[in-house]
């Protein structure tokens, strides 16, 4: 069974509504190791460890489906917008190549 990370510090979701548009910002703590960086002490490569897919739901409806590569920065940040209102529920779920699941959610302020 995949490891699950529901720690509030690992996935942060922040959503704010203004003039009918909700701005959602999410930050996930993850090394996003490319697999191309060398460990200076051993000479070998740090193994690839990246989040590969992520899905965001707004009130249970699919809002954003993402597929990421090694070229997404460490501690990935994503921002998107949609037409909504305060009180909407944002859910985020991501999985990495070690089958660890990252989950977070927030309510639009």
């Amino acid at each position, binding site marked *: 069974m995949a490891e699950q990370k529901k720690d509030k510090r690992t996935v942060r979701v922040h959503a704010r509504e203004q003039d009918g548009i909700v701005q959602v910002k999410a930050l996930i703590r993850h090394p996003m190791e490319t697999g191309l960086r060398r460990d200076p002490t051993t000479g070998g490569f740090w193994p690839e460890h990246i989040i590969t*897919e992520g*899905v965001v739901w*707004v009130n249970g409806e699919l*809002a*954003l489906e993402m597929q990421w590569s090694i*070229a997404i*920065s460490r501690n990935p940040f994503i921002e*998107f917008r949609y037409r909504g209102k305060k009180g909407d529920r944002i859910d985020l*779920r991501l999985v990495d190549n070690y089958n660890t699941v990252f989950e977070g959610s927030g309510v639009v302020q």
Partner: protein
Amino acid sequence: MQRRKFFRNALGWGAAAPVLWAGLCSPMPLWAAWDEAAFREEDFARSIQAVFGNTPIEDSPEVVLKMPDRWQNGAVVPMEISTTLKEVESFTVFVAKNPTPLTGIYKLGKHVEPFVSTRIKVDGPGTTPVLVVVKANGKLYRATHTVQVMVGGCT
């Protein structure tokens, strides 16, 4: 009477338990569609082909790729994609000179504004074009932006 109630409830929970259990340790996400072949492709033109096949992509001034012209740290380069096109389905980003050009695919749901902002790695040092392909209304449109980074971001 209370004992009967207790057993009846217990039976209900017992029947539901396997269903709940299955939900708790469900198999990996059902959307497991990470396009490994495309993400591992090292050639820029072939990686575009791996995602879109031979579908023609036209340049469009309505696609806006907002990125810096020059940036110090290639490991964290801000990128903002937006467009005035309608019925946008997805954004796909490629960084031409990265070891594996395909950077990310963002599929938008309905009612989502055609806007995405994130941070990507750009390899370097050097100058590379960054390409975003927008799928809108079944057709493909693109915009490029050339970025110069001082310190490479991938290695």
